[in-house]
C-alpha cells in the first residue's frame, strides 16, 4: 500500500528559540526570531504564517539545521538537535524553487535520499514507484526535470522529500511559483497526502488563504515573535490583535464603549447607538474595538447602525460596499447579491450583524 508510512511521525518543540542577525545597513544586531516557544504534535500540519521579514523562514531553516539558533534548543521527537548538521536531521524540505537536481531524471531525483541511506536497489525501485504513484507522476520516471511543468516539478520535489519518510516534512513557500489555479489544486493535494501518510508537516507561507485551507494549526508571526497561534477558525474569529485580524482576511474595526456585561454577552455603544457583542475577555471596560468581518455584516433599509454608501461594486459572488459609519469606513461583502436590493453611492442605509460574529478587542 503506497499511502502508509512505516515510520512514526515525530513532534517538534522549539524551546525559547531566538536568532540574531546583523542589519547590513546599520551594522546593528537585531532579533530575526525572538523567544519562540512552540510544541508541534506528531502528525499535525502546522503553518508558519506572516508577512515577509517576520522570521517564519528563519524559524523553518533553524529546524532544518541551515541556521543555528542563538538562544534556546530545538527538539525533534524529544531529542535535542541543535548540534546536528542538516544531513543528520530527520527532516526533509520542499523548497520554494523546488531545487530539483537538473542533471538527474525524475527517478534519480526521488531516489537520491534513498541511495544516500544505502537502501537496496530493488527496494528503492519499489518505494520510488509507490511514491510517484501517490503524487500522480506514474510513468514520468525517465523525464528530465526541465521537461516537466511547474506543478509536476512541485510533485517531484514533494515525492523526493516524502520518500525518505522523514520525521517531519518542511515546506518553504512551496506554491509561490505556481499560478493561482494550480496553487489551489496543489495545496489540496499536499493536505491529502499529508493526511494519508499521517506525517508531521511544518509549512511556511505568507498567503493567509493557503494557511487557512491547509493547516490544523496556524502560527502567525510578526517581527520575529508569535502574534497568535491556534486553529484557523480560532484565529479567524477570535483574533487577539488588530494585526492578526487584519492579516487573516479583511476586517473592520469599529470603535465602541463597553457599557455593560452579562457573562460573555456585552453591550456597547457605537457612535451613540447600542449594539450587542460577545467577548470572552471579561476585564474589558470603557473604550474598545469591535472586530467585524465584511461577510458578517448585512446592509438594509433597517438595522443597528445608520451609514452612508461610498462605494458599491458588483464582484460576481458578492456585492462589495464601502459605507461610512460615523467616522469609520466599513467594508461589506454582501454575498449572493442576486434578488437583493442594491444600494448606490450616496444612499443612506443601515448595517447590522449578529452578536456572535462581533468580537471585542482592546484598543
Amino acid at each position, binding site marked *: 500500500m503506497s499511502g502508509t508510512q512505516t515510520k512514526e511521525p515525530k513532534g517538534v518543540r522549539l524551546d525559547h528559540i531566538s*536568532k*540574531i542577525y546583523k542589519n547590513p545597513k546599520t551594522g546593528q*544586531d537585531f*532579533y530575526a526570531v525572538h523567544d519562540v516557544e512552540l510544541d508541534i504534535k506528531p502528525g499535525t500540519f502546522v503553518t508558519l504564517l506572516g508577512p515577509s521579514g517576520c522570521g517564519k523562514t528563519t524559524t523553518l531553516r533553524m529546524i*532544518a*539545521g*541551515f*541556521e*543555528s*539558533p*542563538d*538562544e534556546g534548543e530545538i527538539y525533534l521527537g524529544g531529542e535535542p538537535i*541543535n*548540534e*546536528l*548538521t*542538516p*544531513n*543528520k*536531521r530527520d*527532516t*526533509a*524540505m520542499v*523548497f*520554494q*524553487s523546488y*531545487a*530539483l*537536481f*537538473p*542533471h538527474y531524471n525524475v527517478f534519480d531525483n526521488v531516489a*537520491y*535520499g534513498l541511495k*544516500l*541511506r544505502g537502501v537496496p536497489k530493488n527496494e528503492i525501485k519499489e518505494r520510488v514507484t509507490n511514491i510517484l504513484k501517490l503524487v500522480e507522476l506514474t510513468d514520468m520516471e525517465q523525464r*528530465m526535470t*526541465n*521537461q516537466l511543468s511547474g506543478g509536476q516539478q512541485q510533485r517531484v*520535489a514533494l515525492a*523526493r*522529500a516524502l520518500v*525518505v519518510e522523514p520525521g517531519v516534512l518542511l515546506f518553504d513557500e512551496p506554491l509561490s511559483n505556481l499560478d493561482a489555479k494550480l496553487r489551489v489544486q496543489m495545496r489540496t493535494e499536499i493536505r491529502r497526502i499529508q493526511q494519508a501518510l499521517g506525517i508531521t508537516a511544518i509549512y511556511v507561507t505568507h498567503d493567509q488563504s493557503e494557511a487557512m485551507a491547509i493547516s490544523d494549526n496556524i502560527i502567525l508571526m510578526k517581527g520575529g515573535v508569535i502574534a497568535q497561534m491556534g486553529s484557523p477558525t480560532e484565529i479567524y474569529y477570535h483574533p487577539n490583535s488588530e494585526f492578526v485580524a487584519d492579516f487573516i482576511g479583511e476586517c473592520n474595526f469599529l470603535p465602541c464603549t463597553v457599557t455593560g456585561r452579562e457573562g460573555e454577552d456585552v453591550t456597547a455603544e457605537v457612535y451613540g447607538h447600542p449594539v450587542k457583542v460577545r467577548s470572552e475577555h471579561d476585564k474589558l471596560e470603557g473604550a474598545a474595538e469591535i472586530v467585524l468581518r465584511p461577510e458578517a455584516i448585512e446592509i438594509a433599509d433597517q438595522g443597528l447602525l445608520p451609514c452612508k454608501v461610498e462605494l458599491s461594486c458588483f464582484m460576481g459572488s458578492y456585492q462589495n460596499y464601502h459605507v461610512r459609519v460615523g467616522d469609520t469606513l466599513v467594508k461589506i461583502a454582501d454575498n449572493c447579491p442576486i434578488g437583493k436590493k442594491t444600494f448606490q453611492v450616496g444612499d443612506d442605509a443601515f448595517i447590522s450583524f449578529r452578536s456572535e460574529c462581533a468580537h471585542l478587542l482592546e484598543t
Partner: protein
Amino acid sequence: MARAQSASLDRKKLFGDPVMVTTIVVLIAFLTLFILYPLAILLVDSIYSPEGGLTLRFFQESFSKYTFIRAITNTLKVGFLVGILSALVGLLFAYVEVYVKVRTKFMGGLFKVVSMLPVVSPPFVLSLSMIMLFGKAGIITRHMLGIYDNNVYGFWGIAIVQTMTFFPVCYMMFRGLLKNIDPSMEEAARDMGASRWKVFTSVTLPLLLPGIGNAFLVTFIESIADFANPMIIGGSYDTLATTIYLQITGAYDKNGACAMAVVLLGITMIMFLVQKFYLEKKTAATLTGKASRARMLIEDKSVTVPLTIFCSAIALFVVMMYICVPFGALFRTWGRDFSLTTRWFEQVFTRYKGFKAFQDSFVLSLIAAPITALLSMIISYLVVKRKFKTKGFIEVVSMLAMAVPGTVLGIGYIRGFAGGVFHSGFLQGIYGTGVILVIVFVVRSLPTGTRSGISALRQIDKSIEESAYDMGANSLKVFTSVTLPLIKDSFLSGLVTAFVRSITAISAIILLVTPSYLLITVQINEFAEKGSYGIACAFATILIVITYGSVMLMNFIIKHFGTSRKVKEVE
C-alpha cells in the same frame, strides 16, 4: 544580545563534517604557504638585512638608481597607454558585435578568432611577428615599403604588441556588459528625439563608464606585470618586470630586487584594490538589469561601413601576426632568403632537445591543470555556497594572486624556498624541482579558474545544494553528486585554461627553472633573445598547435558531453 550560541553551534556543525574541515585547513595552508608567505618574505627582505637589521637602505638605493626610476616611469607610461587603447578597441569591437548589423559569416568568424586569442596565445608570439613584419629586416617595412632603419623596439613596440594582446580581454568584458543594457532605455531616449550619437553619449556611455574604468585597470595591471613582451621587443626600454629580472639574474642583488618587486607589487595591488572594491561594484550597480528583449540592430550604412572596416582591419592584422609565426619557422632566413625549409623544425628536435622541452612542458602542465581546476572549483564552492569563519581569507587570498605579477612571485619563491621555509630547510627539497614549477603553475592559474567557477556557481540556485544536504548528503557528497556535475562545463574549461596558461607561462617560471627542466617558453625566450627567429618560431608554432588543439578538444567535449547537452536535447 549575544550571538555566541549560534557561533558555537556553527563551529560544532562544521567539526561534525571532517571532510569540510580538512579541506579548509589544507586550503588555508596552501594559500598561506604559496601565496602569502613568498610575498611576506619579499617585504621582509626589502627592509631587513642580516647585518644591519631593519633598514630602508634597499629602497633608498633602488630609488637613487636612474635605471630604476626610469623603469618605473616607463612601466607606468606603457601601462597607461595600453590600458586606454585596449579599452577603446575592446569597446569598439563589443559595440559592433552587440549593436551593429554586420552578420556576414566572415565577420562572425573573425570576431570568434579574436575572442579566442587571449586563451590560446602564448607570450612572445606577437612580439616575434612584430619584429619580423616591421623590424629592420621586416617584410612590411623593408620589403614592401623600402624602409631600412625602422626601429620597432621600445615604447611603441611594447605598446602596440600589448594592446593587441590585451584588447580581446576588454572586448569580452564589454560584450557582457553591453548585452545587459536593456534596449528599452535607449529606445526611450531615441523616442524622445535623441540622435544615435546622442543616445550613445547620453545613455550607453554613462552606463558603461565604470566598466570602462574597470577594463582600463585590468589591462593596466596586465601590462605592467607583463614580462615576455618587454623582454623581446623592449630593446633598451626597460620596464619594472624586466629590470627586476635583470637585477636578480644579472646583478645578483637580491635585496635590491626584493625592494623593486615590492614597489611593483605595491602598484599592481593598489590598482587591483581600486578595481575590485570600487569599480567592479559600481559596474554591477549600474548594469544589473537583464535585457528584456532583442535589440534592434543598427543598419544605417554610414555607421556600419566604417565600423566594420575598422574592426576587420584590426582583426585581420592580429590574425596576420599569428600566421606570420609558422612562416617564420618555414623560411630559410627571415628577411633575406624566403625559400621554404623544414630545417628549423628539424633543428628543434635534433639539436635543441625539442622533444624533451615539449615533454617537460606538457607533463608539468598536465599535472598542474587538474589540480588547479579542482582547487578552484572547491574554492568557488566554499565561497559561494558555504559559510564559515575563514571564508573571507580564502576568497581574498585566492583573488589576490591575480594582482601579483609573475616576476614578483618568482622572486618571492626564490627568497622563500631556496633555503627552505624561513631558511629552516623545511620544504627546501622542492626548490629546483618540478614540484615547485607545478605549484607556480597552479598559483598563477588559480584566480582565473576561481573567478569563472564563482560566476558559474552563482547561476545555480543555492537551495539545490541545500536540498541535497537536507536529504542526508555530507559536504563531500554534495560537492561530487550535485555541484561538480552542474558546473562540469566550467570545470572542463577551467581545466583547459589552466593547462594552456601553464604551458605558455614564463614570467615566474623563468626565475625558478633549473637546467634539469627544459620548458618551451623558456626556449622561445632564449632563441628570440639571440635573434634565432627561425628556431623561436618553430618552437612557438608547435606551442600554438598544442594550445589550439587543447581548446578545440575542450569545445568538442563540452559540446558532446557537457551539462548543457541534456538541456539542449529537450528544447
